[in-house]
């Protein structure tokens, strides 16, 4: 955009090149906005249903012109399973986040401070492990293990399974954070007589808080959306999280309860969007390969 001022407009060759450039520029702008428009439609189209239907008087697959009502939310509140499942999701996500932060945090701290031969190899090995032993690839043994231990429908067991899957990446990311804490902070506290746990609580944890928060939010989002593991490990509808319970919102004929599903989807989606906005605002998008997996 700034070239036109820089060249001498009296020069004809330059003027011709400039003319070409202007045309090319205009064409590329048009192309750009056509592309942006197509993308806008492609990505927005499926989402329309989510914003319109909860407030529609006639909720159905069909998107209807706005006819505002809050009646559908009444249906949502009256359903005994809907709100409970959100609560269950909160328990699973919260429990997993707490365990992942605590266990990955302490482990990453110890691994960052202790000089063990083969420590880095160990970290890489478990990271490798977590990327290959995915929920889908390991569903049979995990299902069978909890089945034989009589732990189907045990939420704590599910939380432990979920935590185990998230720990390697969490440890890997947190170790970087721990490594960046100057040793003199801890040594200074140590000379004043702080115990290792006090040092962890007073000094290390606050300093790496952005890292811990990242892991917590990441764990919550992962568990919040996880379908497969709760689907195969929790069969009691009273314990199922939101991801699974939606599949019960159909009548005997297999017709979806649109009022319920639309409002429930909205309610179920809001927390992840909020979580994402918070993380994005506070920490920016920290690009950690493998953070979503």
């Amino acid at each position, binding site marked *: 955009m700034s070239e036109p001022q820089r060249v001498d407009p009296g020069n004809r060759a330059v003027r011709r090149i400039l003319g070409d450039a202007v045309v090319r520029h205009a064409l590329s702008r048009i192309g750009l906005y056509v592309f942006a428009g197509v993308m806008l439609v492609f990505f927005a189209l499926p989402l329309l249903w989510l914003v319109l239907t909860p407030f529609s008087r006639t909720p159905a697959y069909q998107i209807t012109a706005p006819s505002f009502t809050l009646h559908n939310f009444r249906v949502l509140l009256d359903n005994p399973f809907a709100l409970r499942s959100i609560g269950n999701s909160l328990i699973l996500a919260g429990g997993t986040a707490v365990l992942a932060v605590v266990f990955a945090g302490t482990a990453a701290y110890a691994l960052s401070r202790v000089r063990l031969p083969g420590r880095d190899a160990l970290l890489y090995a478990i990271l490798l492990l977590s990327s290959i032993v995915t929920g889908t690839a390991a569903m049979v043994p995990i299902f069978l293990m909890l089945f034989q231990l009589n732990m189907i429908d045990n939420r704590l067991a599910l939380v432990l399974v979920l935590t185990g899957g998230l720990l390697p990446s969490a440890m890997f990311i947190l170790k970087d954070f721990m490594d960046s804490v100057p040793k003199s902070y801890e040594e200074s506290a*140590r000379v004043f*007589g702080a*115990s290792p746990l006090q040092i962890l609580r007073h000094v290390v944890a606050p300093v790496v808080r952005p890292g811990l928060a990242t892991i917590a939010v990441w764990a919550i989002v992962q568990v919040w959306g996880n379908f497969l593991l709760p689907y195969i490990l929790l069969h009691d509808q009273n314990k199922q999280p939101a991801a699974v319970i939606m599949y019960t919102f159909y009548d005997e004929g297999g017709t979806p309860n649109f009022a319920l599903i639309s409002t429930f989807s909205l309610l179920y989606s809001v927390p992840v969007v909020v979580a994402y906005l918070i993380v994005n605002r506070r920490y920016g998008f920290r690009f950690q390969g493998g953070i979503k997996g």
Partner: protein
Amino acid sequence: MATIELAALEKTYPGGVRAVDGLSLTIGDGEFFALLGPSGCGKTTLLRTIAGLEEATGGSLSIGEREVTRLAPGQRDVAMVFQDYALFPHMTVLDNIAYPLRIKRVARAARHEKARQTGDGLELAELMARRPAELSGGQQQRVALARAVVAHPSAFLFDEPLSNLDARLRLSARTFLKRLQRELGVTTIFVTHDQAEALAMADRIAVMEAGRIRQVGTPREVFGRPANTFVANFIGSTPMNLLPATVTDHRLLLAAGSLPAPSGLGARREVTVGIRPEYLDFSATAVPDALSGTVGIVEHLGTSSLVTLETDGGPIGVVVPEEAEPAAGSTGWAVPRPGRVLLYDNETGDLLPT
């Protein structure tokens, strides 16, 4: 409040580096003691071993009658100020200063009160609500000091606390630190590689080389009578003249002239003569018992100048008052002041008794 006693203290790192090599030393109660030496000589390691951050691999250490060699750092009743200050970035100045009291389970109100008092004494009253990142280097240093002071330890351990300050601030911080230590009367060990800093501040100085102590003494002793050529070389803003000489009957023969020899050295032996440039007087006319040469470079030091005399036995530095500067190329004589000629053994480098 406490004497510190090292007995054959030793620290060998796992890799095999012996950073502290059997040190024995007593630091008196309330003494301001400087550990001085070139980079890598083990000063930090010694300090950290005293603090308990490194475990001694041999010998013993006691602080105020109490044997602490195997105690955890927190049980030794010392406070340490790190080179990077190690202020906690997430805490305000007030919380940083109060931290040692928090560990000692002092109630919140009481420890804030105490921290405020200490901070006032160190001119930090206005800064209590800020975080370390919002402070200048000098202010951070004072917060670190306040945090050490508030702990009321029986000893302070400082690892180059002034090295992160700019030259001018360092001078005022020196005075400040020394006054603070005087007022509190707390035994203090101070690590530095800046000999001027050590000379200016310390009651006594230990000069270290490769994990061993080469000399312990007051600044005056260390400057005036370095115990060996290593210390002689290391101490002083202008290096000491070290010149080869032969002892004959009552004379020291140097390439640039001869000087009267102290008695009792025995005849015909090779020695090294050490004379500080500050202890040489310049004469433009020939005088007896002097070393002569041609005036080479003249460096201005402010109120005086360092004149280099090019002699047959190599260059000799002489400090002359600013009004008495000789012209380059003229001939000059350097006259040692009485009692300032030191002789060092050529083999061991140690000072010969005179």
